[in-house]
C-alpha cells in the first residue's frame, strides 16, 4: 500500500501464484526478522535495518516508465516462483530504463522438497512447508539471499534517485525551475526514509528543503529575484495556523504540488512534517524550539518579501500556531515532562500572549469603551481569514481555533483569555527563574490594566518591573517604567508616591526637557494647592530633587565660641529643570553636650586636616545598582594622631571613612528606591534659610547662626520645603559637625625675652583672653606692687585688641596709674572672645643683701657654695622671684604671677698681700648676653673704722663689661693703728646696658657685700735653696740644702688668742706645723718634710728649718711650697679633728689634698671644715688638730722665686722642665 506509514519497499512476484501464496505468510513473516547492514553511498554511515516487503503480482504496466520520480511505488525486485523437482532453474532478467528488474526462478523439487538453487539469481527452497531442519536451513539461506538482493536493488534505485534529485537541484538557477516540483522529489526520498523508519534521514530531507527555501528568500531580499519565488509572494488570504495533528496534511501538500501554496502554506506543511518526524524521534522540545524559530522566521520572511498581509492576520497565525504546537506537544507528553521542560515551551506561551495582546489592541478589545465599528469590521475580516475549523479539531473544546474565535468575540472573553495566558506565562517564567522575562510580561499586563482603567492592578506589576530594572541599573527601562508608574499612581491618588515618582522623573535626564518640566510642574502645582489640612506635610526624599554637593564652614575649622557667628555655606545641586522657589531650607542639628571630646578623636583630626573646611559629599550613585558584588570603593585616608601637649606623633595609620557603607547589612535591592516614609526630625536646633530660589544646577546657600550653648552640633537632616511638600535628606553623610565652646577669661603674663634681667628695665607681655567676659569701660587690672619690683610707666604704651582669629580689631593707649601699693592698668574696651595684648616695663630692684644667710641676692650666694659646685654655678645666673598679685575685673580672686629675674653679674672678692700691705680685689663677671657699661665703683667699709682707709687703684671711672667677661677692681687697705680683726665691705658699681642710649630712669647701682677677716700678716715664710757646698749651681741628682725661715711679724694680737697659744713667763708662744710640699714633683724632699715648731708670739721672732732636697730636673725650678698650719692640741669638743701625728706619719698625699684648698680660700669663714671630709675614720680618737693659717696671716716672701738647676754631666738626655 502506497503512502502508508508502514514503510514497505515493494517487490513484485510472478510465476506460480498458488505456490507463492502458500509460502507468502512465512516469507512476509520471516523477512523482517533479521536485520541487514545497509551500506550507503557518499560515505554515509552504514545502518542496520529490518526489511519488510510488499509483494504484488507482476503486471506489465508496473514496470517504471522513463522519468518516473515516484520512488515509493517503484517495484524494486521481481521474483519468479515455480515448483520444480529437479534443479532446473532459470533466471531471466530484463533491463529497464530507470531501474533494475530482477527475476528469480524458484523450483519445486518433489512434493516434500523445495530446492532453492542459486545459479546466478536462482534460489532453491527445499520443502518450504515442512518443519525440518533442512527446511529451516533452506529458508534461512533463501531469506538471506532475498534480503541481500532486495537491499542491493533498493540501494541501487535509491542512489539513482538521489543522483537524479541532485541533478535537478543543480538546475535551480535555470529558468523555469520549480521549487515545488523539486520539493515533491525530495519529499519522495523523505517518505522512503520514513518508511524505512530512518526518521533522521527523512528529517534531513525536510531540513534541506527548509534551508534551500530560506536561502532563496534571503537572496531575494538581497535583490536576487528568483522567478519562482514571486509565486510565494501572493497576498496572504488565509491564516489558519499550523496543523500538526495529521501525519501528512494532504490538502497543503496538494496545494504545493499544484504550485498554489503560499509562503505560509509551504512553511506550515514543511513544519508539520518536521514536527511529525521529530515526534517520531521523541524530540518534542525541539519541536517547540523550532516552532518559535519558524514563527519568527515566517514573520520576517513575509516582511522581507513584502508580502501583503492584512493587519492582525499574522498575529492570528502566530497565535494559532503557538497554541497548536503547544497542544501537539502536550498530546504526546505527560504532565511531569511538560513541567520539567517549561524552559522550552515558555517562549511559545509568551509569544502567544504577545500576539493575543496585539490582536486585542487591534480589535479595540482593550479600550475602555469596547470596540467601535471599525474594530468590529477588522475582527470580522480576521475571523474570515481563519476559515472554518478543521474537522480534526472540531471536537476539541480548547482548540486554538475556538480559543481565538472566542477571545476576539467580546471584551470580556478577550480579557479572560489574555489574563489566563499572561498569568500562565508569568508563572512559568517565574518558575524557571526567568525573572526578567516574567517582569516584562507583567509590564505588558500592567499596560493592559491601565488601559482597562484598573490602575490598582497595574501597580504591582510596574513596581515589580521597576525594582528589577533598578537592581540592574537599566536607565531607559527605569525611566519608561517610572513614567508608567507615575500615571498609575496618579490614577490611584497616591499623592505622595506620585510626587516622589514625579520628582524622580523631573530629574531624569533620559526624558525630554518638556517631560521633565511637566513632572516638575506637577509637584509645584500640588505644592501650591491650598491644603485642606494645613500643616500637613508631604515628605519626599531629597535625592531626586536636589543633591547636597559640598559644605563649607566659616570659620573653616568649624569651631566657634559662644555668641560667635558661624556660617555654613552649602552647594545644592538642583535636579529640577526649572527654577524652584523654596520657602525654606532647614538643617536639623543635633546638639550634644560632650564638650570637645569629639575633637580628640582621630576622625576629627583627619577630617579637618584633609578637607580644609570644605566637606564634599559623594555624588549620588543612583543610576548604578548597589548589588552585593559591587560595594562602594574604599575611602582610605591617612591618619596622624598627635599628642596634645607636645605635638609629637602618637599614632599613625589608615582609616576607612566609609566603613558603615561597606560593613552594613546587605539589604535587598528595595533599598534602592528611597522608602517613601522618610522621617522628618523635629529638633530644637535648626539652621534655616528662607525664600531661596533653586536654579537648575548648583546653588550656593548660606546659613548663618549665632552659637549659643557650648557643645557639639551635628548636622542631621536637610529639608527643603516647597509649599506642603518637604524634600528631606534624612542623613547627612559624611558626618558634619561644628563645635561651640565657652572659655573663661584669662590673664597671662610672660617675659618678652627668654629671661628677665634684674636691675635694668625689662619688658613683660600681658595677654588678656577675654573669653566670655566683655571688657567694659573702666575695667582695670590692679597690680599689688612687689617691694623690689617697679612697674615703669611709659606714656606711649598701647594695648592691642585682637579677635579670636588673631585679626587686630583695635588698639588703644594704655592708662596706668600707680600709687604706693597698687598699680592700676585700665583695660581697653573689648568684646568677648577677644585678646588684649600689651607690654609693660618692669624693673627688679636689688634688695638689701643679707650677710651670711643663704640669699638669692647679688653675688652673696656664691661664697657659700661648696667648692665643687663652682664650675657649675659659674655660668648660671642667680635668680630672684617677684610675685605680683593681680586683681582682674572678672574674678573676685587675685591672680598671682611670679616673675623670675636673673642677676646678670656674679661677683667674687679676694684678699691680696704684699708683706704686710693688703689689697682687696673684686671681680665682676657678666653672665648675661648683654654688654654693660660699669661706672662709679665704690668699696666702702661698712663698719666705719676710722682707722681704715680703702685706696682705690682703679683708674677708669667708666668701664665696659662685655657679655661673658669679667672686670677686676682693686683697693689697697691702709691702717695706722692695729688693724681690725675683720672688715665688712660693700662694693657698689653703677651699670647700664651698653646698647641703650638713654634710660628713662636712673638705675640703682649693683652692690656686693662681703667680709674680710684675719687679714693682718703674722708670719713671713722665706725659703732658699743652696747648691751643695763648693758648687756654683744645683745639679740634678745632687742634694741641695733647703732653708726655711719663719719670722713672726707682730706681737700678740687678738687673733692669736686660741687654744694653741701657751703662755710662760709672760712670753707667749704658739705651735705651728710646717710642711714642704712639691706638687710639681720637681724636687725630692729627703728626710722629714714637715715638723712642728713652737713659735714665740713676738715680733721678729724667727725659726729656721733646714732640710735636704734633690732636684729631679734641670732648669729654673720653682721652689717647693712651704705651708704653715696651726697645731692645736687635742680638744674633746673637736674629737673629730685629725690626729696630727697619725697623718704626719701616714702619707704626704693627704697633706697635698689639704693644700689644694688653700691658695683659693680667700674667705676665712670656711676654715673649719677643711679636714672634715677625711676625718671620719678617726672619729673617737683623741688627736691634735691642724688648722691652716688664713692666707692673709702668712706671707710667703719667696713665692715665685726659682732656682737654676743644671743637668748632671753624665746625662745624655737633657730634660728641661719649664714651669
Amino acid at each position, binding site marked *: 500500500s502506497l503512502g502508508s506509514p508502514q514503510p514497505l519497499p515493494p517487490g513484485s512476484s510472478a510465476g506460480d501464484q498458488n505456490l507463492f501464496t502458500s509460502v507468502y505468510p512465512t516469507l512476509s513473516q520471516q523477512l523482517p526478522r533479521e536485520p541487514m547492514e545497509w551500506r550507503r553511498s557518499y560515505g554515509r554511515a552504514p545502518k542496520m535495518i529490518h526489511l519488510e516487503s510488499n509483494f504484488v503480482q507482476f503486471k506489465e504496466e508496473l514496470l517504471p516508465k522513463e522519468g518516473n520520480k515516484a520512488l515509493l511505488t517503484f517495484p524494486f525486485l521481481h521474483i519468479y516462483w515455480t515448483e520444480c523437482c529437479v534443479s532446473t532453474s532459470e533466471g531471466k532478467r530484463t533491463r529497464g530504463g530507470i531501474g533494475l528488474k530482477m527475476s528469480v526462478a524458484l523450483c519445486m523439487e518433489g512434493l516434500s522438497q523445495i530446492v532453492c538453487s542459486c545459479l546466478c539469481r536462482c534460489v532453491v527452497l527445499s520443502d518450504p512447508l515442512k518443519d525440518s531442519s533442512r527446511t529451516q536451513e533452506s529458508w534461512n539461506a533463501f531469506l538471506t539471499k532475498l534480503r541481500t538482493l532486495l537491499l542491493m536493488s533498493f540501494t541501487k534505485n535509491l542512489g539513482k534517485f538521489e543522483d537524479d534529485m541532485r541533478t535537478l537541484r543543480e538546475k535551480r538557477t535555470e529558468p523555469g525551475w520549480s521549487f515545488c516540483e523539486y520539493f515533491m522529489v525530495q519529499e519522495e526520498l523523505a517518505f522512503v526514509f520514513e518508511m524505512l523508519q530512518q526518521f533522521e534521514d527523512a528529517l534531513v530531507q525536510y531540513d534541506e528543503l527548509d534551508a534551500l527555501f*530560506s536561502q532563496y528568500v*534571503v537572496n531575494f*531580499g*538581497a*535583490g536576487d529575484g528568483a522567478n519562482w519565488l514571486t509565486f510565494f509572494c501572493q497576498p496572504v488570504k488565509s491564516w489558519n495556523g499550523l496543523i500538526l495533528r495529521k501525519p501528512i496534511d494532504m490538502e497543503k501538500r496538494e496545494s504545493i504540488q499544484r504550485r498554489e501554496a503560499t509562503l505560509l502554506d509551504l512553511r506550515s506543511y514543511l513544519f508539520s512534517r518536521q514536527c511529525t518526524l521529530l515526534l517520531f524521534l521523541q524530540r518534542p522540545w525541539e519541536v517547540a*524550539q523550532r516552532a*518559535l*524559530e519558524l514563527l*519568527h*522566521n515566517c*514573520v*520576517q520572511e513575509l*516582511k*522581507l518579501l513584502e508580502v501583503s498581509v492584512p493587519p492582525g492576520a499574522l498575529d492570528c497565525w502566530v497565535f494559532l500556531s503557538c497554541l497548536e504546537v503547544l497542544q501537539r506537544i502536550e498530546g504526546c507528553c505527560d504532565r511531569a515532562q511538560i513541567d520539567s521542560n517549561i*524552559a522550552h515551551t515558555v*517562549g511559545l506561551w509568551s509569544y502567544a500572549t504577545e500576539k493575543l495582546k496585539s490582536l486585542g489592541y487591534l480589535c479595540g478589545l482593550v479600550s475602555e469603551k469596547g470596540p467601535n465599528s471599525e474594530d468590529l469590521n477588522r475582527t470580522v475580516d480576521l475571523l474570515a481569514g481563519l476559515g472554518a475549523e478543521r474537522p480534526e479539531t472540531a471536537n476539541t473544546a480548547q482548540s486554538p481555533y475556538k480559543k481565538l474565535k472566542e477571545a476576539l468575540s467580546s471584551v470580556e472573553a478577550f480579557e479572560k483569555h489574555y489574563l489566563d495566558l499572561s498569568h500562565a506565562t508569568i508563572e512559568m*517564567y517565574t518558575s*524557571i*527563574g*526567568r*525573572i*526578567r*522575562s516574567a517582569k*516584562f510580561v507583567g509590564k505588558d499586563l500592567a499596560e493592559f490594566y491601565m488601559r482597562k482603567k484598573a490602575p490598582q492592578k497595574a501597580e504591582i506589576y510596574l513596581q515589580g518591573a521597576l525594582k528589577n*530594572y533598578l537592581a*540592574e*541599573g*537599566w*536607565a*531607559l*527601562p527605569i525611566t*519608561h517604567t517610572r513614567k508608567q508608574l507615575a500615571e498609575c499612581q496618579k490614577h490611584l491618588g497616591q499623592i505622595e508616591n506620585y510626587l516622589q515618582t514625579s520628582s524622580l522623573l523631573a530629574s531624569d535626564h533620559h526624558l525630554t526637557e518638556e517631560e521633565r518640566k511637566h513632572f516638575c510642574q506637577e509637584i509645584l502645582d500640588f505644592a501650591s494647592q491650598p491644603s485642606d489640612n494645613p500643616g500637613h506635610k508631604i515628605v519626599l526624599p531629597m535625592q531626586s530633587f536636589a543633591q547636597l554637593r559640598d559644605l563649607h564652614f566659616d570659620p573653616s575649622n568649624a569651631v566657634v565660641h559662644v555668641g560667635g557667628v558661624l556660617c555654613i555655606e552649602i552647594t545644592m545641586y538642583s535636579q529640577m529643570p526649572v527654577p524652584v522657589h523654596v520657602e525654606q531650607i532647614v538643617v536639623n542639628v543635633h546638639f550634644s553636650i560632650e564638650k570637645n571630646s569629639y575633637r580628640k578623636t582621630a576622625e576629627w583630626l583627619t577630617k579637618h586636616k584633609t578637607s580644609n573646611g570644605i566637606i564634599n559629599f559623594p555624588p549620588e550613585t543612583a543610576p*548604578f*545598582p548597589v*548589588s552585593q*558584588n*559591587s560595594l562602594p570603593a574604599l575611602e582610605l585616608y591617612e591618619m596622624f594622631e598627635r599628642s596634645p601637649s607636645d605635638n609629637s606623633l602618637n599614632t599613625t595609620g589608615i582609616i576607612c571613612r566609609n566603613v558603615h557603607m561597606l560593613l552594613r547589612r546587605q539589604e535587598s535591592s528595595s533599598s534602592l528606591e528611597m522608602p517613601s516614609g522618610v522621617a522628618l526630625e523635629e529638633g530644637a536646633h535648626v539652621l534655616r534659610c528662607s525664600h531661596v530660589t533653586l536654579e537648575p544646577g548648583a546653588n550656593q546657600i548660606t546659613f548663618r547662626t549665632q552659637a549659643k550653648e557650648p557643645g557639639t552640633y551635628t548636622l542631621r537632616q536637610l529639608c527643603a520645603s516647597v509649599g506642603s511638600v518637604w524634600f528631606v535628606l534624612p542623613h547627612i553623610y559624611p558626618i558634619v559637625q561644628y563645635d561651640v565652646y565657652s572659655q573663661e577669661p584669662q590673664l597671662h603674663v610672660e617675659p618678652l625675652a627668654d629671661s628677665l634681667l634684674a636691675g635694668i628695665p625689662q619688658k613683660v607681655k600681658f595677654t588678656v583672653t577675654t573669653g566670655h567676659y566683655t571688657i567694659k569701660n573702666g575695667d582695670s587690672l590692679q597690680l599689688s606692687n612687689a617691694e623690689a619690683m617697679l612697674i615703669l610707666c611709659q606714656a606711649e604704651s598701647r594695648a592691642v585688641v585682637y579677635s579670636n582669629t588673631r585679626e587686630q580689631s583695635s588698639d588703644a593707649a594704655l592708662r596706668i596709674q600707680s600709687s604706693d601699693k597698687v598699680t592700676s592698668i585700665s583695660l581697653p574696651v573689648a568684646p568677648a572672645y577677644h585678646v588684649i595684648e600689651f607690654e609693660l616695663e618692669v624693673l627688679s630692684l636689688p634688695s638689701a643683701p643679707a650677710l651670711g644667710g643663704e640669699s638669692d641676692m647679688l653675688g652673696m650666694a656664691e661664697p657659700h657654695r661648696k667648692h665643687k659646685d663652682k664650675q657649675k654655678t659659674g655660668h648660671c645666673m642667680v635668680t630672684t622671684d617677684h610675685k605680683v598679685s593681680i586683681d582682674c575685673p572678672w574674678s573676685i580672686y587675685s591672680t598671682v604671677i611670679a616673675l623670675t629675674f636673673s642677676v646678670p653679674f656674679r661677683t667674687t672678692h679676694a684678699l691680696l698681700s704684699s708683706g704686710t700691705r693688703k689689697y682687696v680685689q673684686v671681680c665682676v663677671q657678666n653672665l648675661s648676653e648683654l654688654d654693660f657699661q660699669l661706672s662709679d665703683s665704690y668699696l666702702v667699709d661698712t663698719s666705719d673704722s676710722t682707722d681704715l682707709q680703702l685706696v682705690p687703684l682703679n683708674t677708669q671711672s667708666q668701664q665696659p663689661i662685655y657679655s661673658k667677661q669679667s672686670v677686676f677692681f682693686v683697693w689697697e687697705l691702709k691702717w695706722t693703728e692695729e688693724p681690725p680683726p675683720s672688715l665688712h665691705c660693700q662694693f657698689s658699681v653703677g651699670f647700664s646696658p651698653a646698647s641703650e642710649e638713654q634710660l628713662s630712669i636712673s638705675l640703682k647701682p649693683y652692690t656686693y657685700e662681703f667680709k674680710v677677716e684675719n687679714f693682718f700678716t703674722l708670719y713671713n715664710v722665706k725659703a732658699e735653696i743652696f747648691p751643695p757646698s763648693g758648687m756654683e749651681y744645683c745639679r740634678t741628682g745632687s742634694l741641695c740644702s733647703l732653708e726655711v725661715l719663719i719670722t713672726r711679724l707682730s706681737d700678740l694680737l687678738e687673733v692669736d688668742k686660741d687654744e694653741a697659744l701657751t703662755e710662760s713667763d709672760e712670753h707667749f708662744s704658739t705651735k705651728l706645723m710646717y710642711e714642704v710640699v712639691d706638687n710639681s714633683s720637681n724636687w725630692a724632699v729627703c728626710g722629714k718634710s714637715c715638723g712642728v715648731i713652737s713659735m714665740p708670739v713676738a715680733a721678729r721672732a724667727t725659726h729656721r728649718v733646714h732640710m735636704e732636697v734633690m732636684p729631679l730636673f734641670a732648669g729654673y725650678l720653682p721652689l717647693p711650697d712651704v705651708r704653715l698650719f696651726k697645731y692645736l692640741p687635742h680638744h674633746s669638743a673637736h674629737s673629730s679633728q685629725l690626729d696630727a701625728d697619725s697623718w704626719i706619719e701616714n702619707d704626704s698625699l693627704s697633706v697635698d689634698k689639704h693644700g689644694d684648698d688653700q691658695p683659693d680660700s680667700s674667705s676665712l669663714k670656711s676654715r673649719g671644715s677643711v679636714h672634715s671630709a677625711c676625718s671620719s675614720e678617726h672619729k673617737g680618737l683623741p688627736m691634735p688638730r691642724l688648722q691652716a693659717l688664713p692666707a692673709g696671716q702668712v706671707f710667703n716672701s719667696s713665692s715665685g722665686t726659682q732656682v737654676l738647676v743644671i743637668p748632671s754631666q753624665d746625662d745624655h738626655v737633657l730634660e728641661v722642665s719649664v714651669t
Partner: protein
Amino acid sequence: MGKRTRYLTITAICIPVITKENYPLYIRSTPMENELRFQYMVHTSLDMVDEKISSMGKALVNQRELYLGLLYPTEDYKVFYTTISKVKFVMVVNPSNTALRDNEIHRMFWKLHNSYIDVMCNPFCNPRTISRPGTDNMVMSMMIQVC
C-alpha cells in the same frame, strides 16, 4: 541598489556591554529611537544568558570558546558572548540578515572584546563607563558596515 540593500549594510543594530552584575556598561544602538525597546529586549534576554551560564557552570571558565551563540528567540536575533570575567557582550542583529555567518560574528565579538580590554587596561578608566570616542567609533562601524 534600491531599498532592499539596507538589510545587508546594517550588521548589528544594538551592541550592549553588560557587566557581571548585569548592569549595562555600554549600550549603543541604531536607530537611536529604538533604544528603549532594545534595552528592554537585551535586559530580558539576560535571563537566557544566566541560564546558559549556569548550565555551563565551570565549563565556561575553562572554555576558551566564549561565544555562546544565538539566544533569546524573538523576531530580532540576539547573539551572545561572554568573557572570563563574566562581562557579557550582546549583539542584536537584524533578523533579515541571516547572511551574517557565525565566523563573522565571532570576528566582531573578538574586535569588541579587544576594544573593551584596551579600555580597561587604562588605569584611569572608570569601570562604570567605558564610553569614549575610540570605542564608539569601533562599535558604530560594526553596526553600520559598508559592504
